[in-house]
């Protein structure tokens, strides 16, 4: 088991390093950073001075080396736009992104798992169709439109919730509900399939033949063993949320990393773009690693290999 953990750690580091490399070369395409810093009106002397200061006169592999070594020390340079250390700016936005992701998951998981389990229990019922319908509708909705519809209904017409903002608990409801609506059907569907598979297994009928209560059979036997696919899908959703809530953040003015990246791109803020993408990608790698380690806890058969 220790060997497995070490292996996974090494490969996680390798991916983060690759991400760093990719960030460096992709952002080369962004154009001349000096132009971005100084604008079109700069004179040649100024440009030369800034180029020198930023090390842009060095060969590209030297620049790459500087980039990697500085990143290893936790520095991506100062943001052009806000004149503050870029990495610090990204970290200051991280709690908002994580909060929104976790709030969304906290809506999706209980509702999706409950609906899916009930549908598995009442096979062929209306609930099954409702779940299928929700899942297909959820995967056909555009997030920004759903967000605007919810704003129109709950904020503009009913005046129950704020349209956008950050800070009070009421602010998180609409963005989280928007993101959850898109995904809850899928999780319910996965749960239903997986639980009904377990319900038709031998150990479930054996448990019934021992006179155990239906609730116990459902929870300890069917649901417990259906947990692995449910967990896989739910953690995949969390990862997507952490990296992909840009649009929801834009619509609701939610000050997360996604919004920051979009602003940084619009401003041509090279260090900020690099730092933000690095943090998001690393977060995905770390979450994937945690998910793999969590499998060890869920599945006793993996644990002992």
């Amino acid at each position, binding site marked *: 088991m220790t060997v497995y953990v070490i292996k996974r750690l090494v490969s996680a580091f390798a*991916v983060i390093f690759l*991400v760093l490399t990719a960030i460096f070369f992709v952002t080369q395409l962004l154009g001349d950073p000096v132009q971005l810093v100084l604008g079109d009106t700069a004179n040649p002397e100024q440009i030369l001075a800034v180029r020198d200061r930023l090390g842009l006169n060095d060969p590209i592999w030297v620049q790459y080396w500087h980039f990697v070594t500085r990143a290893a020390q936790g520095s991506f340079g100062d943001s052009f736009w806000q004149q503050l250390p870029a990495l610090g700016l990204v970290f200051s936005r991280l709690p908002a992104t994580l909060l929104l992701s976790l709030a969304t998951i906290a809506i999706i998981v209980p509702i999706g798992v409950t609906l899916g389990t009930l549908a598995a229990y009442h096979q062929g019922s209306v609930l099954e169709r409702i779940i299928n319908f929700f899942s297909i509708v959820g995967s056909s*909705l555009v997030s920004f*439109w759903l967000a*605007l519809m919810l704003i129109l209904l709950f904020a503009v017409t009913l005046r129950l919730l704020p349209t956008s903002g950050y800070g009070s608990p009421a602010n998180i409801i609409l963005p989280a509900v928007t993101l959850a609506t898109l995904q809850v059907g899928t999780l319910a569907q996965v749960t239903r399939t997986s639980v009904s598979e377990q319900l038709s297994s*031998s150990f479930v009928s054996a448990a019934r033949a021992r006179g155990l209560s239906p609730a116990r059979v459902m929870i300890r036997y069917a649901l417990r063993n259906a947990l692995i696919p449910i967990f896989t899908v739910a953690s995949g959703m969390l990862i997507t949320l952490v990296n992909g809530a840009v*649009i929801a953040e834009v619509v609701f003015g939610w000050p997360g990393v996604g919004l920051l990246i979009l602003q940084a791109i619009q401003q041509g803020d090279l260090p900020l773009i690099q730092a933000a993408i690095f943090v998001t990608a690393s977060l995905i790698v770390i979450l994937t690693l945690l998910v793999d380690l969590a499998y060890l806890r869920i599945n006793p058969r993996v644990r002992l290999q």
Partner: protein
Amino acid sequence: MTSMKTAPETPAVVTITPTIQSSRSPLRLLIKSGLADPLVIASVIWIVLVIVAITFRGAILPAGWQDSVLVNRLKPPFTTDSAGVLHLLGTDALGRDYLMQMVAGTGATVFPALTAAAIGLVFGLSVGAVAGYMGGRVDAVVLRITEFQMAFPSLLLAILILASLGSSIGVLIIVLALGAWTGIARVSRGLALELRELAFVDSARVIGGSNPRIIIRHIAPNLFTSVLVLGTLEVAALMLSAAGLDFLGLGVQPPETSWGQLVSKGRETLASAWWLVVIPGLAIFLTTLAVNLIAVWLRNNLDVDQRSRNLAKVARKTEIKFDPDETPEPPRAQGEQGAHSTSNAILEVRDLFVDFSTERGVAKAIRGVSWGIGRAEVLAIVGESGSGKSVTARAIMGILERPQARIRRGAIDYGGVDLLTIPDSKRREIYGAGISMVQQDALAALNPSATIATHLIEVIQAHQEGVSRKEARDQAGDLLRKVGIPDPIVRLDDYPHQFSGGMRQRVLIAMAIANSPAVLIADEPTTALDVTIQAQIVKLLLDLRKSTAMSIVLITHDLSLVAESADRVVVMYAGRVMESGPVHEIISHPAHPYTKQLLAATPDVMVTSERLKPIPGSPPSPMRIPSGCPFNPRCEKAQDICREVRPNELHLTPTRSSACHFAEEVVSQ
């Protein structure tokens, strides 16, 4: 469906030549099912409208559709303007007809996603196919690349590339295709791997002189289906991504319009002019939904696995009907029901009928079975597989497969009540306490994610009131010791997969005896084990019977096991009891030709010099049971009467009965 027209007696012929029909019927089936589903019809109509809007854009848009008419600003849908023109979808902030704006934006909304899906599909398919087919290093590299790209936030990558290279339709398509190809490559890699294996199988067949067209006929269509469904789903997903980029202002640029762009523009007037946001967003939603619904329809009707699943669903709903070849039996007289029972039985099955509904019709698994078991008795139920012996056990334990299985008639008496009529909660009190069961496959019968302690504690606590967890755990340790598991206290915390086959069977027995049952039903408890372990398990069961005076129903196909361990035997064939009686009498003087032929086919039991004689033929399908005596096609003694009249159960002695027209003749031989 054409097979229904053929004679009812020739189902086998129809199943042998399915390729002749299947070459054309999928498409017909597909269209037929589509016409039956209003959602599919609506989706197709919507897609047609979208295509019309794109193709005839030039003809639909009136001259000057882009000119602003400020007097008509922000008119809601269904209003007429000053010139008396009806605006079905209202007007925008510049007073232009919104329907025309929508029509103008259709192409730019759909085209990038469609093109990107096509590119992603072609690229992903070829990369995946090459990786899957080549295997080895190429495969590993491709897998790494897709994994790496998946770790990279795809929307952020798209935003970054669009921001660096500038937004244009070309870049937009590339960015979208970049997000699409990895998933497709992974699926097509899997398909290619499968294909490669099938190709090997096929080449082996070619050596035998068969037809290589199998690949074209059978494998290619399946590949095509997967790709078609995958591509359709991808179009829907990319429409959403493209709309998102349009909304952020990174996708389609003015003067081109797209629906995503319209939503973004309309956002400024959300509070005053809702339709500017609602309509284009709804259009995106409906288009994506239509594409997704069509993908589901394709998958449900083209995919072979899915099709059989659908068939099974239909079969589940059909009501069980009697076959015309078997007339329903009237309930029997009271005295007859105990034909195979014993005086003062503690568990008695009376005249039990169990049916299964399947895709191909109703299978009659049990047709009028009766038997009873006395205190501390070992009753063996023997028969070939499919004779209905395990179904009887499952019916007693209330674990028949639902909703396919139904108990048509009968009673199961235990402790003065009929298990089939009492409420579930009352039955649960009996299962695991009064009657318990040991299953055949011990690994499958145990919860893989619970320890043995958990299993034992829960069954103890479910039936013994006021027992604490600690006390239950102590009992659990004693039980493991009782069934002969070494180091019982240590092993309590192990998981099922950590035990050997024989030890797992002991664990099942420990659970079964945890609440000192009156009857233990052992369903082929030793089949999965090797011979020495089999003997140990049987010895354990017999020892337990001796020490606890519980009765054991031993379900088995192993006659030598019966001879060693049982007191009485019930012989089953095709869902019926053929004969029953004390074990030594039946082995020395069988009263049914089936038993006789079964014994002749079993080593060890008949210690005569005769050679082993396997029974010719095979048991009948539970869907077509021969009329008369079910065994008549395989019987050495069969006469005309055996083919026409079903024999009744005949009492030879107070303890013996046989369902054979010639029982007395057979038993005296």
